[in-house]
């Protein structure tokens, strides 16, 4: 039991950190430009595939640096030549644009890398156990991922709070027009933030690819969950996105790990229900993919501004 709790907590935190890497960029983009970028998870997927292709040439570590830069550049191009054009037609048009973009990127990935998963894996030496607990190994790679994630958060915090650009970004989050009136180049700032957010998603892809699986469906499976994180955390709140990421990561991991059905739980509370019924026989593990969306609908109904958000979407 303790084994399950410890490993589920570790894995849940890991998954949560990965989610936060994705959702931090999405939150920044959303609160600044008002665009809920549907293609965000597609950039995550591109990060994984770029790192896979580059990794074969230059190795894992250079790819870890290069792939996010490439994805970020691509994101900046998309903002400059696509999104900016659509902007004048309103938010719905922007959402439609990113939706179509996600569609096209998914298809392009299938076209270039094929419809089955590619063998993108961490280097061999990172598959060694970092420590062994209750006879189960925790690989070095997982530890490295946590380190990278923590390093990224510190860098993000430093960038936003301690640099001039960060100050402009924070100002533009709430007072976009005023920043423009003060003579800063807001479109360029938008492009930078969009590219930066996409680069973060790309970084998440580089480390998420070996962790989960690098296949064309990875954007579709993770994309909606990232939206859930952003909405649950509160639109535009980085710290809210952080808590929501960890929350969803932990909930999903624990639901998968606990081998019990609804009936088992109800029976434990003294109720007497059929353990093999259609509804009561559902295991928590099979409920796991649904939990983020249940949370989303509940949050939107009862607390539309999210956990930490100040504005309603």
């Amino acid at each position: 039991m303790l084994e399950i709790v410890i490993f589920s907590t570790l894995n849940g935190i890991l998954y949560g950190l990965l989610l936060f890497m994705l959702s931090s960029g999405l939150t920044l983009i959303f609160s600044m430009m008002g665009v809920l970028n549907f293609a965000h998870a597609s950039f995550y997927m591109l990060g994984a595939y770029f790192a896979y292709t580059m990794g074969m040439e230059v190795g894992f570590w250079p790819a870890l640096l290069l792939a996010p830069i490439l994805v970020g550049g691509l994101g900046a191009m998309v903002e400059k030549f696509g999104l900016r054009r659509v902007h004048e037609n309103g938010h719905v048009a922007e959402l439609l644009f990113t939706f179509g973009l996600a569609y096209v990127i998914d298809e392009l990935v299938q076209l270039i890398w094929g419809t089955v998963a590619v063998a993108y894996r961490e280097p061999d030496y990172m598959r060694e156990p970092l420590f062994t607990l209750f006879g189960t190994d925790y690989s070095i790679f997982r530890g490295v991922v946590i380190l990278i994630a923590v390093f990224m958060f510190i860098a993000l915090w430093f960038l936003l709070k301690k640099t001039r650009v960060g100050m402009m970004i924070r100002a533009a989050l709430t007072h976009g027009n005023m920043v423009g009136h003060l003579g800063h180049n807001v479109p360029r700032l938008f492009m930078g933030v969009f590219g930066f957010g996409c680069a973060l998603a790309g970084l998440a892809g580089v480390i998420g690819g070996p962790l989960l699986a690098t296949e064309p469906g990875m954007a579709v499976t993770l994309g909606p969950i990232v939206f859930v994180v952003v909405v649950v955390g509160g639109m535009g709140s980085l710290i809210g996105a952080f808590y929501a990421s960890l929350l969803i990561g932990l909930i999903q991991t624990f639901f998968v790990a606990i081998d019990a059905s609804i009936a088992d739980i109800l029976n434990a509370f003294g109720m007497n229900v059929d353990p093999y019924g259609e509804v009561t026989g559902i295991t928590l593990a099979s409920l796991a993919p649904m939990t983020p969306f249940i949370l989303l609908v509940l949050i939107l109904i009862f607390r539309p501004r999210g956990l930490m958000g100040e504005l309603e979407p």
Partner: protein
Amino acid sequence: MNDITAVAPRQNRFSWRALSPWLISAAVLLILPFVLESGTAFTLMNVIAVNIVFALSYNMLLGQGGMLSFGHAVFFGLGSYAAMHAMNAIDEASYAGEGFWSHIPVVSMPLVGMIAGGLVALIIGWPFCRRAGTAFAMITLGLGEMVAAAGQMFPSVFGGEAGIYGNRMVGPQWFGLELAQATDVYWFMAFWTFLAVFAMWAFTRTPLGRMSNAVRDNPDRLQFIGYPPRNIRFMIFIASGSFGGLAGGMAAVNYEIITPEALGLIPSGLALLMAAVGGLGVFYGPIVGAIVVSLMNSMLSDYTDASILYVGLVFLAIVMFAPRGLGGGIEQFRVALREGSLGKRLPGWLIGAAAVVLISLGLVLFIELLFQWRHGDDEFAHFFGLDFAAGSLMSWIWALVMFAGGVAVMRFSKKFREDNA
């Protein structure tokens, strides 16, 4: 969709002009089966009919009510499931020769779907309709994912991965429709499509239909004059869900199988795709979109393996360059024709069209070459009867030349096109 078109004055007098589109489309529907010959053409027509109703019902939300939904397939799918279960009930009842369902013909299945879709919207809709915009988009996305996941979880209702299937040749026959062949099904489809399209058009003329445009354009003002926007959104949501369910009922009869995948994000996206390609601002836009997208989906796959990519690119191009969609383009053409300014504006349009054709030729060649390079079984990418070798640089240069030529035409004719617009 943000431009507010002037509300036409109410015409109470009978006019052939208002009636003509209906007469023409009815005539087309009647004549088509005598022109079409192959069974595959009928199959395609039936798919298009389902998609037309689906796309139009979606546009009640997005185009007319301003509510962007990513979960419209929930109504389509649940309507379809209801119709399928009803069809199986008819099968059993008519086998036993008694019971309520033994008197119900299969041709009325779209009504069952409609009731189911409307009921689902009625039950779940109220908390969703508080806000439009991003909140609505997100909550419908969550709903869609949730229902799709639930579809896998209750096999006795949804049939698990394999779905459930039925038989449409059961129960009492009406109008001598045996529904055995695709040609038989065509009459069924034509009837329901015509009826549903007319009903949805009539809906836009009702006070509620007008109000739905108001809630899209200015909800605050609507609230101010005493109509709570949430109530109106809720009513639109129910109406749209009903017609989505009706499309689902048609699909149940057409395909005779339904899987939980029909509830998910992919069919919801298809509705959005069709409506946006056709144009959200014109009533008949989604019809055009449904026809074009269905044709592209079924025909392109004969010629290329990247057919879905092309559909996506067309969607992206329309969102970027022609936000009013194909229907908006047709409207523009009609306005020019009526004003007599067609002669002045046509050259600019033709130049623009030529540029678009060049750009798309370049892109298509590029994609085909890319595909050939990655997956090629033979050496050449087939391109409108010509063969291009993916290995030779010249092919790629051709693609680039066509693309750049198109962009150049676009750039240099910009002033001319704007002056004559």
